[in-house]
């Protein structure tokens, strides 16, 4: 039998394992101390003593580390588990993450028999929406949102943990390992995640997060997982006095069909914040080449239509793969202005309705890539901004003005 970490083990001369916290099919987790900084950390390593094949376990841990690195490179998010370090010790990969003191949502809610104060539930919901929005725009897809995977600190601040089944946005070819497998869960997962998307008619996208968060809100209220779609807490014992706004939001969020739900987690956060189930303003885009009008909600994304895998809010055909998986994201300011955020490597161009010239909008990562290639993104003046306010009539060219994917922003108007 190979070496097994145990209580008191010192990993990579730095991380002391203090207390065994638990194990799953993939990994074992310890509470530990970073002896250099004195910080409390959680230390994960493969659990080869499980029913999974060692290769599956290795792939899964590796994939979790990849995702956590992507998250760290994107600047991290307070509601998402933070990667501290990864080390190989005794031929074993250790992932060191920030330790969250609290209990998982399953235990926290079961112990209380449901969370009594709807305001607490609302706040947890908003935080989870923000975490999911953050992951979406960084092209990370979290496929297993359920009470066991959310830690609640004692002040009920939620942190998303366990990125075993999360993965990058790109569809992978021939990935048959566990990282490509999603276990059905009829309570927390929407139909498009539990079933063959071909039969459902659409794939996983931002609307899928909305469903799962809606179900988590219901779970926190009632203390039980509910299989029903479009669940109205007021119909169930124990939650009949749920505030109307919250009940209606949960009912919309958990609708069976994606078109009946809020479009993305940003919209869900807005309605929770406003305590008003009516979704915020919608804007329109006209796609010149496709001669088609699209509705856009705050938080919506536009990206390339991939052969499979998760989708942006609006997926455009792009056989040459110039458009990024998530190319641009839209949001609306408190003043009602619509803002375009570039999220791509190639950048996005805007032609102002007031005249002028094409202006490039480029994400920080796109800019870094140009700089790595020795090009100066700011050669012709200031470096391109990462975002830009849109006015009705503005034209948007994804990738480049000469690349024939042009959209006209029509504002809140009906489009043409």
């Amino acid at each position, binding site marked *: 039998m190979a070496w097994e970490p145990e209580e008191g083990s010192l990993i990579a001369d730095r991380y002391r394992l203090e207390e065994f916290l638990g194990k799953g099919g993939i990994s074992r987790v310890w509470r530990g101390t970073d002896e250099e900084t004195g910080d409390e950390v959680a230390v994960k390593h493969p659990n080869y003593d499980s029913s999974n094949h060692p290769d599956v376990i290795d792939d899964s841990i590796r994939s979790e580390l990849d995702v956590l690195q992507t998250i760290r490179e994107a600047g991290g998010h307070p509601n998402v588990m933070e990667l501290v370090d990864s080390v190989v010790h005794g031929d074993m990969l250790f992932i060191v993450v920030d330790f969250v003191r609290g209990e998982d949502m399953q235990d926290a809610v079961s112990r209380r028999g449901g969370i009594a104060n709807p305001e607490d539930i609302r706040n947890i919901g908003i935080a989870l929406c923000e975490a999911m929005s953050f992951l979406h725009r960084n092209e990370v897809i979290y496929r297993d949102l359920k009470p066991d995977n959310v830690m609640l600190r004692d002040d009920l601040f939620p942190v998303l943990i366990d990125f075993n089944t999360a993965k990058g946005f790109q569809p992978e070819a021939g990935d048959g390992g566990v990282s490509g497998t999603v276990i*059905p869960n009829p309570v927390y997962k929407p*139909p498009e995640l*539990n*079933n*063959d998307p071909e*039969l*459902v*008619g659409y794939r996983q996208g931002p609307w899928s997060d909305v469903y799962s968060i809606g179900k988590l809100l219901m779970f926190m209220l009632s203390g*039980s997982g*509910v*299989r*029903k779609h479009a*669940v*109205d807490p007021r*119909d*169930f*014992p124990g939650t*009949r006095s749920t505030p109307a706004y919250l009940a209606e939001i949960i009912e919309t969020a958990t609708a069976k069909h994606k078109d009946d739900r809020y479009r993305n987690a940003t919209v869900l956060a807005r309605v929770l914040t406003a305590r008003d189930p009516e979704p915020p303003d919608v804007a329109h885009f006209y796609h010149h080449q496709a001669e088609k009008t699209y509705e856009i909600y705050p938080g919506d994304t536009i990206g390339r239509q991939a052969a499979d895998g998760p989708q942006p809010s609006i997926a455009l055909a792009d056989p040459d793969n110039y458009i990024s998986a998530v190319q641009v994201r839209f949001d609306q300011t408190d003043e009602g202005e619509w803002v375009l955020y570039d999220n791509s490597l190639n950048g996005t161009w805007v032609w102002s309705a007031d005249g002028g010239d094409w202006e490039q909008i480029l994400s920080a990562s796109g800019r870094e890539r140009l700089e790595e290639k020795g090009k100066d993104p700011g050669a012709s003046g200031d470096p391109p901004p990462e975002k830009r306010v849109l006015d009705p009539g503005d034209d948007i060219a994804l990738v480049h003005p000469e690349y024939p994917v042009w959209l006209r922003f029509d504002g809140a108007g009906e489009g043409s």
Partner: protein
Amino acid sequence: MTKLTAELDRAEVAASGSSVTGSVRIEPGMTDADAQRHIALCLDTSGSMSGEKIEQVREGVRWVFGYLAEDDHLSIVAFDDEVEVLLPATRWGTIALDDADAVVQGLQAGGGTDILAGLEAAHDTLADLESGPDVGRRILLLSDGRDETVTESFAEFARRVRREDGIAIPAAGIGDFYDEDTIRAVATASDAEWVHLSRAADIENFFGRKVETLRTVVAPSPNLELGLPAGAEIGEVYLRRPQVRQANFEPVDGDVRVFLPDLLEFETQEVVFTVETPPCEAGRRFTLVDVTLNIPGEAASTAVEVDCVTDPTGEGRVASTEVAVRHVDTMVREAAGEGDLDRAETILKEATGELPDQATRIAGADDEGAETPGESADASDRVDAEETRIAGQSGPDADDSPGGEGTAADTLGEDGTAADALGGEATQIRGGVPDVSDADEETLSELRTVVQRASAEDLETQYESTKIEREE
């Protein structure tokens, strides 16, 4: 849209006849609209249900309220020695929640257990409601006790209610002392799931799951016709998914009709069977199984052909060990699900060739001359025609049944359905077991795990044996 696929474990059969294992898979798509539901809750309120259990029953019923839509109908029947209809079938949109809550308070534990009377009353509440192809009908039975009525009476009742009125009876036993044979028989004979609940807190989940999924009925009371060439004989027929159970089937004009659970949205069903091919002319190709799925407004069909050869060897002989493995797995799970681990063990040993020929040879199996070269010398993978043929068999007792009383006989009810549990000597395996000794070690070890996980004493593990993880 419902997808229908059929596969056999081989592409070639011997001119002298072969034992073939087959599988039919039915994959329903999405429903266009929610089905209307007719639900009778048939609840054990005997004295043993007092305390936490009756409190959880009340809570579970209140949860059912949450799942219902306006045009659904609900009735509530409580039984102990007496039967009380607490709520006649009521359209949900016409009753105030407070009134429904008041009904729940009427659930009080006390007295004995007359399950059959409870079921009959529950059936009566639904009998007069107008039904149709867009309606899902259920009696949800929950009991923790025993009823002196013989098991076959329950099976007969359940079968009749299912065939005549399209009502299935998912049945849940709770605790350690319920009558598991009755629970299994009621559910199995009505093409429904039997469920073990170990904790009172699981009641709510059982009700919720059954009520919610009923909303997604794609087609009620479907059946599958397996058309076979003249002289072919069907052996074992099991339902593999959504739950491993004996299948209900009957002969129809030389073919076999298998009664299926209601098709629910996205819920895959799988039927596995064995068939003895008739002698054929070498060099010919013929359709061995012609499959038709009969559902209202839609009929899907598919067929599988085989080549008749003098000497089926090599690649063509066994096209898919997987089909045979699934069949053995199903047989093992079915036995384990009934707590008959001896039988599960024997099936496994026979399938993997771990038992010497004679020890478990099926009495009356065909002679060795019918064996094809290249096949295992063990005849145990051949279905015993006498014992398992259903065509033409009408009486419940076949005198030549070799396994002593009950081996084949009581698996075939009056109308040929396999409603009753398998009886007789534990180690007599009805119909023979496919040979999977060629399967790889990982597969064999998975089969062994099924047996190891089940316990003759623990109902929970038996129930778990009947559930197949999603597989593609």
